């Protein structure tokens, strides 16, 4: 009967209840959409960075990530590969070696990062084989060939077929030099990458830079972002048993790209601060509704108390009423927010010139697709729910201070 009473009570003033629900729904829907939007862009950012740069997990020699010293190697990559094969949650892996080197074309010389990649493995882990704009990706038995980013190709004045000279220092300190032919030109959309790196086959790299069998990074892709922590744990444990003379470490994408991870956190936090401000404004604007509900009905509460209704029961009734309003608002907000998000999720959002330009800076090109997920659907409305219920606590507890006589004589 309490439920029935609460239900009927909230509809005593349809207009007011409806407006309150709409206010809550508005906040809920907005948050669903915004969070889906943010999560969607984070996912794209992470995926594109992971696919182009680091993979989800890497095995490196300890200290390599900070110093990028050519001497800090993974001496026996096949042993690590054997471990990865047995690690659950790993989808694919590949080997890479990297060093800084001078690259000269006929006209130009630049200092850039030269990356040795395993043609077969790389194609499974990174997107590079899919983003070749000119020329072709490496064949499996590629030898003296190179892939260059679009901007680097422009800077060096080269096209597929042109020759490049690499000049650097081998792992043993010797001079390392070779000539490669440009096989393909790629565009990742991330300027820094397209301007600052050049890929050659791993075998050639190992040969030229005196690496032997060693590599610098064993790059692994997990089945999903969520599978990373567990895979990392398993991997770390297995690596300690490998018994290399210099310990190997497993690093995840957050450690490999701290800027990306923290940047996302900052964006999320600053978003959350704004959402909290918004919810507080909503809370104050609906507080009146909840408060009025008790002052208008003071005499009624007096009668109920005279009948023996305890203050606790009145509190319960009021909380039930505000929860009903809140829950209806929240559910409405989730539905509207979900539908709007879903609509854009299918079609994508075109944010227009200036915004796209900024997004491109973060590795998001073209349309943006918000990602409706359980988290984005529930987090915002959850926060609204909590703050709204806290708001309704004040009137609901205020009613405990009512004394029957005063309530009965209240005008």
């Amino acid at each position, binding site marked *: 009967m309490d439920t029935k009473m609460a239900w009927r009570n909230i509809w005593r003033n349809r207009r007011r209840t409806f407006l309150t629900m709409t206010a809550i729904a508005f906040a809920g829907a907005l948050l669903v959409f915004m969070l889906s939007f943010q999560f969607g862009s984070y996912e794209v950012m992470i995926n594109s960075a992971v696919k182009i740069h680091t993979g989800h997990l890497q095995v490196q020699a300890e200290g390599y990530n900070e110093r990028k010293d050519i001497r800090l190697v993974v001496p026996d990559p096949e042993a690590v590969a054997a471990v990865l094969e047995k690690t659950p949650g790993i989808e694919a892996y590949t080997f890479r070696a990297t060093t800084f080197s001078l690259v000269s074309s006929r006209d130009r010389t630049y200092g850039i990062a030269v990356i040795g990649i395993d043609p077969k493995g790389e194609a499974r882990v990174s997107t590079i084989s899919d983003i070749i704009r000119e020329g072709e990706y490496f064949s499996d038995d590629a030898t003296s060939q190179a892939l260059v980013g679009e901007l680097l190709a422009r800077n060096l004045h080269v096209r597929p077929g042109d020759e490049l000279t690499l000049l650097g220092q081998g792992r043993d300190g010797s001079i390392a030099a070779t000539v490669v032919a440009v096989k393909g030109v790629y565009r990742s959309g991330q300027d820094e990458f397209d301007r600052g790196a050049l890929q050659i086959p791993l075998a050639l790299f190992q040969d030229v830079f005196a690496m032997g069998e060693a590599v610098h990074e064993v790059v692994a892709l997990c089945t999903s972002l969520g599978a990373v922590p567990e895979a990392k744990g398993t991997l770390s444990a297995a690596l300690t048993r490998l018994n290399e003379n210099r310990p190997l470490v497993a690093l995840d994408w957050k450690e490999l790209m701290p800027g990306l991870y*923290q940047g996302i956190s*900052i964006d999320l936090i600053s978003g959350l601060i704004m959402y909290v*401000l918004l919810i*507080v404004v909503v809370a104050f604007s609906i507080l009146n509704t909840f408060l009025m509900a008790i002052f208008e009905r003071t005499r009624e509460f007096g009668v109920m108390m005279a009948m023996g209704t305890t203050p606790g029961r009145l509190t319960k009734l009021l909380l039930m009423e505000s929860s009903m309003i809140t829950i209806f608002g929240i559910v409405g907000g989730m539905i509207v927010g979900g539908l709007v998000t879903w609509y854009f999720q299918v079609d994508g959002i075109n944010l227009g010139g200036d915004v796209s330009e900024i997004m491109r800076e973060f590795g998001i090109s073209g349309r943006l697709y918000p990602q409706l997920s359980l988290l984005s659907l529930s987090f915002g409305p959850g926060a609204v729910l909590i703050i709204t219920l806290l708001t309704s606590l004040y009137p609901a507890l205020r009613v405990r201070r009512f004394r029957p006589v005063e309530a009965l004589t209240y005008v």
Partner: protein
Amino acid sequence: MHLQLAWRNIWRNPRRTTIITIAVVVGVWSMLVVGALDRGMIDQMVRNAIATLTGDIQIHHDGYRSDPVIENSIADPKDVHNALARHLPEGSFWTARVRVNAIVSNARYSTGVTLVGIDPESEARVSFIKTAVVDGHYLASDDTTGILVGRALVDKFETKVGHKLVLMSQDTEREIASRAFRITGTFRAELEATERQFVFVNKAAAQEMLKAGNGISEVSLFLPDHETVDMVRDKLKASLPPAYEVETWRELLPIITAYLSIMDSWIFIWYLVVFIAMGFGIVNTMLMAVFERIREFGLLTALGMKPWWIIKGVLLEAFFLLIMGMAVGNAFGFASVFILNRTGIDLSALGAGAEYVGLPRVIYPTVYIQDVITANVVVFVLGLLITIYPAAKASRFTPVEALAHI
């Protein structure tokens, strides 16, 4: 009389009036503070970028920007000097630089950098570098072997002031030129990327190393009044041969320009969203207020009060609520921005993340008068607009309705 009546009416229920006023206060406050934070952030980003090396305007040889090599330099800067002498407003500063990609190395490490050859004296007036030196000292004008390096690079190279570095770059004859320098000082910059990217030597040393003669890569200038940027650019452009590119910082920093251009709409959207959130409260509160007095309004109508007067009365009440909320909200908003502006919001603890999203190390929230006006107009005008609904309701209560209402 009307005013007095409306004022007394809103204080018939002080609790309700207080609560809705608080809603408006929180709303207006958050509008101003978030707006000021965003403005302060972008202003700081612009200032940093301009001070780092951009300046207000840059002049290049027209091939340089797409292919920044020594070959594409301004071989004889005389034309530029003349144009600058004629068109620069009083109080401007300018400096000429050699700026090319290079490789820096020591015994253990090597990496790609941007080599900047500067004229220490004029550079000090245009860019950040002189004040950014933290260890050692700034370049002397006659020091042709000194080099300034960023702190991050020094750390990475495990080196320090007094030690040697070798620079390599392609000279005008397309040969690899190399030369040893001694670190005279290290600098800190707003962004770690800047510390890793740039090394500074004397312009004459760079020209000699690259066999560039008198050639320079760019001229960067700093105007006393930033509003005149476009005008100065046009004048310089007109007086220089077409082989020169003259660009303002807006053209040189497309990302920041993009941020700037979406700022206005972004802030406006935030204002609207906050307003909608409190708009529900305003409408609800006013509805309650008029329904409570339904008998009163019914009676007034019965007495022949014109509907318009009733509408006016209700609007006046909303007017007071809004004005109070706005006054206090603005006061709090200004106060918090003032305090935050004094202390600045230090984001350096956020480290790499702040750098990744391009945030400066310290944000000084800045109130833009245009934002304050927009925020208040939004709240006031839309606030009154939505009150028309309860006001119209009140004007249409018939005496019968009024009496039927308990």
